[in-house]
């Protein structure tokens, strides 16, 4: 997790010397606006791992009810940024932040914020499927279990809803009591999505959810993201630009901890404002 801006492999055309703040112009911003307003607003947000600055004064906002993709070369800070939304970076020592991230108009880094409540409103799906060593059923209802819900009917309902929402219900409905570790990789990842949505969050954070999966499983997950769009605000970090084109409404291109371009996915990929975005999406570096 300790990716830092300084460790970024620089491409020949933008050597380390180019990576000074003067080089960067203001972020090109032309996002598609949703109908429900902003979900997350990032304001001049910077983050340091120890002395290394990983995020540089980023400002943009994520639209409610849309799918937003974060793209960029390895180490550009997109996962770091994603993990700031539900404060997973709290687990790492020596992290320092500046600026604000607002969710529902409240600064999530304010001391008044209940981190646990925040995480309950933001489900997260990780790069590698991480089902718990329990039954499929127990995995899905984990968010309810930790809330102390014991009513069997409520739990059953949540399990079914979660698994249906993650398009896994038909495959596992007859073996809910079997260990989740016996599922295939793609099924495990959908189980993790089911778990993330069983707690009925508002936002789904996905950190390269398909990078450990084969193409068929990836296609299923992408299909699923498309369906989730209607109910959740989805933020997805991806290395796969085709995937970003397929699933997202807005795309944010980051480079060396800075947001370079944020806008409508079609525009970002077909007609980017920024030269560096163009270089990246056309495969000249990254």
């Amino acid at each position, binding site marked *: 997790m300790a990716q830092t801006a300084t460790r970024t492999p620089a491409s020949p055309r933008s050597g380390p010397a180019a990576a000074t703040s003067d080089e960067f112009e203001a972020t090109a911003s032309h996002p598609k606006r949703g109908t429900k307003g902003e979900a997350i607003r990032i304001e001049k947000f910077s983050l340091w791992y120890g002395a290394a600055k990983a995020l540089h004064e980023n400002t943009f906002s994520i639209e409610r009810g849309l799918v937003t993709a974060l793209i960029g070369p390895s180490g550009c800070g997109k996962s770091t940024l994603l993990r700031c939304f*539900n404060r*997973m970076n709290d*687990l790492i020592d020596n992290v320092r932040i500046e600026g604000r991230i607002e969710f529902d108009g409240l600064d999530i880094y304010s001391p008044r914020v209940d981190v*646990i*409540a925040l*995480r*309950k409103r*933001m*489900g*997260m799906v*990780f790069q*590698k499927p*991480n*089902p*718990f*060593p*329990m039954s499929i059923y127990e995995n899905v209802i*984990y*968010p309810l*279990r*930790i*809330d102390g819900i014991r009513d069997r009917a409520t739990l059953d309902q949540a399990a079914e809803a979660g698994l249906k929402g993650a398009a896994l219900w038909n495959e596992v409905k007859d073996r809910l009591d079997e*260990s989740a*570790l*016996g599922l295939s*990789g793609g099924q495990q990842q959908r189980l*993790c999505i089911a*778990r*993330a949505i069983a*707690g009925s969050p508002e936002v789904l*954070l996905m950190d390269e959810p398909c990078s450990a999966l084969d193409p068929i499983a990836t296609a299923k997950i992408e299909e699923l993201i498309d369906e989730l769009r209607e109910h959740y605000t989805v933020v997805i970090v991806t290395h796969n630009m085709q995937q970003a084109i397929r699933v997202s409404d807005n795309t944010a291109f980051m480079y060396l901890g800075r947001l370079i371009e944020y806008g409508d996915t079609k525009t970002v990929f077909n007609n980017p404002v920024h030269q560096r975005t163009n270089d990246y999406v056309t495969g000249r570096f990254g």
Partner: protein
Amino acid sequence: MQHQPVAELKSDAGAESSIVRLVRASQTPLVARGEPFVWALGSALALGIAMIVGFLVLVLWNGLVTFWPKPVALVTTTAGKLVAGEPTRIEAYRPSSDSIANLSADLQSAIRGRNGYADRTLYRIGNYDLYNEDFRWLSDFEKASVAYPKDLLFAERLEWGVFVGTLKAAQIGGETLDRPNPRDPKLIAAHREARSRWREIRHIERNLIGRVNYNIDQLRLAVRRAEIRYGASSPQVASARAEEARQLPSLKAEYDRLAAAAQALKTKDQAINVTLAEVGGREKVLPLSALVRFYPANDLSLAEKIGIYGSRWWEFVSDEPREANTEGGVLPAIFGTVAMTLLLVLIVTPFGVITALYLREYARQGRLVSVVRISVNNLAGVPSIVYGVFGLGFFAYTLGAGIDELFFPERLPNPTFGTGGVLWAALTLALLTVPVVIVATEEALSAVPRSMREGSLACGASKWQTIRHIVLPRALPGIMTGIILAMARGAGEVAPLMLVGVVKLAPTLPIDSYFPFIHLERSFMHLGFHIYDVGFQSRNSEAGKPMVFVTTALLITVIAVLNLTAILLRARLKRRFVGSQF
């Protein structure tokens, strides 16, 4: 040079050199070749296995043959004396020049031909009450003849060890049997009856009278407790005394009744006796109930031998020790070992797991934590006797004495918790083994994938919920490994136990039918200490030696069973919580 033919086939010089290099040549340095190391490592492993297997075979073989009934030899010495006994072992020794001076010239030259060595045999002659020794060495040149007469009897007695001789007569219910056959059904039936009568007497004396005594003691203690708590002239003391006075007569009557019943049985028992004669002719009259087992040693079928073997093993694992532990069983020691080990696990597990959880999950990983961790690891290197001293000084004499003063003042100056006991022994061993559990648990905790913790936290679980639902179940197999290691170490430890509660002979088990049923303050017997005791502290070490092997074999078995149970449990947990990760 031996590669010449290969090289000749190739005209090209470059190809030649590469061919030569491919074929293993003498110029390849030894270190560059794998085989010598494989051989060295393999033989190291083989050596290790050979030592372990050799040890186990030695212990198990010696342990297993001990109870097999052996024939009894009747030796006529050159001096014309008769000696009867089980030949135990033969060794070469150097007889003193005096003892061979008056031997025949043939024998003398034979001994000289062997550089002054002669063979001698150790006989287990028994009859300690008559001979004042259990074993006797006889040199080959002292023996005139050796016979195995069928009428020789081998009898195990409750007191004075074994008797070797003949069955002269038996007195059963007024009827006298002269020179009875040991297999006489009448004798066998009478013996069975006498043994059950003996057990009945023991039951009355120990359990029934014991309970009466216990009740009398409780009344006395109630008075004493009231005196201490309320003062000697308080109404509480008066009522306690009244209660004592009310109950005492009936208890005394009960005591007298039981004592009379026991006495009646004993009188009956004395009437049924056997007359045994040793080979020298001296006779001994014993109640039949005093014989645990008797058999014609030189006249046994295989089935009878197996029967005797089985009954000796059964006695060993199910009965109490006799004869300063060298005979009888070790049930109290098995019980004590298992109870102490389980108690140790109950104490060390929460203690070690909680410590490791704090160190690994909650504490900031700084210098202080490193110091703590190093100290914990160093604790494992402290000699165990030091823990024993600490356990005695701190647990028994400080904590225990405090508990006595607070809760059992009426029993002072007799200590209750203020002396060694099974609780203090388990606590001491817990202290000794806790580093193992801490280290294993820390390893197990750090092996829980970060992705699982993050998954749980991202669901909105608190840190404790994550540990409780995700981390601990997943780490459980690793924690079990630590517990298994701690258990193995704890069950095999003897030195500290000698200070904190193990005794040679414990009159009572730590668990019985008296309130509160589990008596953690009681001293107990332990197989490890039992080995030391029979091997080095008993009246005669020859009798103890085979018991050392038997007890060791049993201790190894007990520990193996405990460990196997834990290992099976761990395998189940592993299947359930770790599973196959792709």
